[in-house]
């Protein structure tokens, strides 16, 4: 089983070898509504944990996507540029945003696991 973690800002991060795949959760996409535009960082760009890594826009609003962990952008999901609706259709799969080369895998320890995130969402209601 690969490690899957969640942030309080509704990003998910999954370890894939030495890379961390990042996206927004199903709850986040359902709150945003139809995603119409995604702005991704450049490969090689460095992001710090909790800082803006990408932007996701729905009909309703523009929202920042924060880096769950610090690292360097290794890959971006360029298919989202032409097909932003993938974020709604498959937020935890084809709708991923970026892959990070992690600075410190220990940063994942501070994030919620799936059970913890479920409880976190329930507490929001």
């Amino acid at each position, binding site marked *: 089983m690969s490690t899957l973690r969640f942030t309080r800002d509704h990003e998910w991060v999954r370890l894939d070898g030495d890379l961390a795949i990042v996206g927004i959760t199903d709850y986040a996409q359902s709150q945003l*509504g*139809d995603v*119409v*535009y995604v*702005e991704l960082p450049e490969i090689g760009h460095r992001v710090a944990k909790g800082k803006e890594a990408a*932007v996701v*826009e*729905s*009909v*309703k609003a*523009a929202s920042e996507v924060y880096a769950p962990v610090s690292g360097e952008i290794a890959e971006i999901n360029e298919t989202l*540029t032409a097909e*932003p609706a993938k974020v709604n259709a498959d937020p935890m799969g084809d709708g991923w945003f970026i892959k990070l080369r992690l600075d410190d895998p220990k940063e994942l320890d501070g994030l919620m696991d799936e059970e913890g995130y479920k409880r976190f969402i329930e507490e929001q209601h």
Partner: protein
Amino acid sequence: MCTPEGEVARLGFITAAEVVLGGSKCLLARSGYTGEDGFEISLPAAGAAAVAEMLLARPEVRPIGLGARDSLRLEAGLCLYGHDIDETTTPIEATLAWTIGNRRRAEGGFPGAAVVLRQLAEGAPRIRVGIRPDGPAPAREDTPIVNAVGVKVGRVTSGGFGPSTGGPIAMGYVDRRHAAAGTPLALLVRGTARPAHVVRLPFVPHRYYRG
């Protein structure tokens, strides 16, 4: 007495009739702020839920929220108060000169008359225009508008994605020299200049019922 159905079907845009709906006496106005044909229903609060449920029970009716109302009015080129118009804008700048009747134009004597009548005669220094970004990035309210050499010439007052137009749309005020349809501009979205151009409003033709 007319049947409500017959009477309602003949109502033109911005006219109203009293009808009984779901047991409540309602004022039914063929109006709204979406650019589409539609009705606004006023009735005693006690009967409102029953009328709403009666309408929602019909298969062709779906509820929508304020987000849909906002994208529709933007596509229709309609101003949202506090955003596209406020106490710092004039009806002439907002291209709403039609709201000023002939008597007022002749006699003045209303708040702001000196400025409004001068702008009617000489033109306004800035004009509300439609703006279509050339790329896919939406430009929201307060996005700076710059000309070809990067000088600020205006500001977006409403902007987002138009579901009916299938792309980003905006409106805002620009210096009068940049207000002609087709004028190329750029929108500073999160610091990046995104090409755009001025277009005529509305983005989607109005479909009011004129009888």
